[in-house]
């Protein structure tokens, strides 16, 4: 079952990295076993023009999520650091789509 550019669902309910085959989670929580790192947003590159502190008193961070096997980046967000990640998904399982 295709999930996104990096993930595919196995028939047993696991989710795997399509680049290296490492298990990253389950259909109910595809990034459960992924590696997460939080860092300064300016690590995202020169597109982050100014320090967030110029505009807000809340901490802002870059949260990157990686495959535990090949370290391909599975998810990246620049968000307030005092919030949990809201970006999740849960899939019921493969459809009858041809070729899935």
């Amino acid at each position, binding site marked *: 079952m295709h999930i996104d*550019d990096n993930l595919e669902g196995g028939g047993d309910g696991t989710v795997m990295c399509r680049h290296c085959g490492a298990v990253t989670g389950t259909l109910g929580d595809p990034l459960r076993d992924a590696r997460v790192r939080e860092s300064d947003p300016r690590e995202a590159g020169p*597109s982050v023009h100014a320090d967030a502190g110029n*505009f807000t008193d809340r901490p802002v961070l870059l949260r990157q999520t990686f495959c535990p096997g090949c370290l391909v980046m*599975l998810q990246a967000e620049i968000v307030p650091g005092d*919030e949990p990640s809201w970006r999740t998904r849960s899939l*019921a399982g493969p459809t009858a789509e041809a070729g899935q």
Partner: protein
Amino acid sequence: MPVIPVDGAEEFANQPVLAAETRRVAGASVRLHDVSPERVDTVDPLTYEVIRHRLTSITEEMGEALKRMSGSVVVTDCNDFDAAIMDEVGDVVQVGLYNTELAASLDMAVSWTMRHRAARPGIGEGDMFLCNDPWIGGGLHQNDVSLFAPLFVDGELFCWTGAVAHQVDLGGVSPGSWSVAATDVFWESIPLPPVKIVEGGEIRDDIEDVYLRRSRVPKLVALDLRAKIGANNVAHERLRALCQKYGADTVKAVMRRTMNDAEARLRAKLLELPDGSWTSVAHQDSARSGDRGIYKIVLKLTKEGDRLTFDFTGTDPQVDGLINCTYAGLRGGIMPVFLTTVCGDIPWAPGGLWRCIDIVSEPSTINNCTFPAGIGKASVASAWATTNVATECLSGLLDAHSEHRKRMMSVCCGTWDFALLAGVDQRGGGFVTMICDSMAGGLGARSDADGVDTGGLACIPMGRVADVEMNEFAFPMLYLWRREEADSGGPGRYRGGVGASSCFIPYDSPLGGVHLVVSAPGKALPLAAGLSGGLPAGTQYDVLLRGTRVRAALAAGRLPGSLDDIGGATEMVPSHHETDLGPDDVYFTHWQGGGGYGDPLLRAPAAVAADVASRKVTPQAAATVYGVTLGADGQPDLAETERSRAALRRRRAGLDEAEPESARS
């Protein structure tokens, strides 16, 4: 001062109601045309297609009429308007390809009008109703003024047409009705519930005077009113001809079937997609000038069978500022991305599409606010943020299907970079205008292609940017540049489309300078998220340069090409700001691109090299984000790139730091 609740405001807190309810209430005062389901089912396929496409072209003709009669650059050159055809109870049969946000709540305004105005003052032939109350519908904030008109055929109310356009100023503390210091709606343009401004084919002078008296540019607004009247008249002329040729019952049957077909085709597509839920978040920094907060809209999109539920539970409470939106704004946030990514091959008949959607939203939240919350910026604040979070979730759903994933897109241009100028123009007249350069936003990356550079905005498929020359002709300003900006698109295996920047000075105003209002979040954090490992697009970046010698440079024949060239004292502009631009001041505004898709380290090195050559990506980003090493000839050194990427892969995951390995909690 606390925001004071207003008794009686609940009358205007409109929610969509079933067609049967509108028919029951309004039917006591006005005869409504209807056809049986059997009549709908027996329209022959050829007639159906001919009439259905004719209805689409009528909305385009309405748009053309609006543009040809308006005097506002926002309408004539930027297409910040839309038109729609609705059935006799207000369900939208066809929405135009212009600003789909604006058209997403015309049904609510028409339904409210039928339920509250059919008895008094009544709804008759030749009448038109004007509305800019977003709690009722018809638009997302007070600048969105809708004009909707019933068409009568043989004494029965056959259908409604509607035209809505952004008006550059309708009062309020700040020019442009964009009161950046607002804590509630009473700082802003006061909303007008539906009022019969055209009666029996004639403009009511008393109502028009009440409407125009609030504006700093009443003649411009009056012309736009006539443009909207003209658009509705064009639509009615075409629809009457259609009814004369095919019969009113046949045309109505096609309208019904268009909505039914849209519903059926959407349900069929939803059944092809996997069941599941996708949750995401959209942030906005700053609710008003001086505010340093960050506010979130949370969405859990659930697909089960042939239904979608948009659940906004967890969204922040409404704020004391101008960024809230009403329920109409929430719908207006969902519909644009829904139409373009999910319904690209389905008739754009929201009257049928809404039947497949449930919305869960708590009142008094930032994208479902209660009166008298400030909403002056709603369309490009909380409604736009709703579009962003809906984009992520819908794209996640589409990405799980091998065919439909081709239509998904990362978030496009995370917000509107608002810059408003006001003052005395080069002809000695007063002017107010919104600079619409940021219509050229970067589109989000797709699952199989880069985002379109300066491709536009997701919510306005036919949006345009006014030519530099048109802005300079119309307003006292002179551009130093308008150009695409490298690195503004989110990095990814597929890159987000880049945004751009404009840099200009006040020029040729008898006063020397102009007044400036800025409202542009996305500075504390980027608002155009990436997907599937793609990075967000760049942050918003606006700068004021004071006391420059730019005029001396121009007089000497030198055109500055960078902020360093311009000099002067630099002020980083906060998200909300109001000030004056003096004759030696320069304003630089850099808006956002689209989010990326996929891990940037998987982008083909040759593609990165091409990005650098075409100035979409800087050499610095090519090395530090994409991990590509370029030779002196600009071509990728593949061996060195492989080594660089291996090192970067570990470094960005924190494996070369003194960090313990950790699983996601």
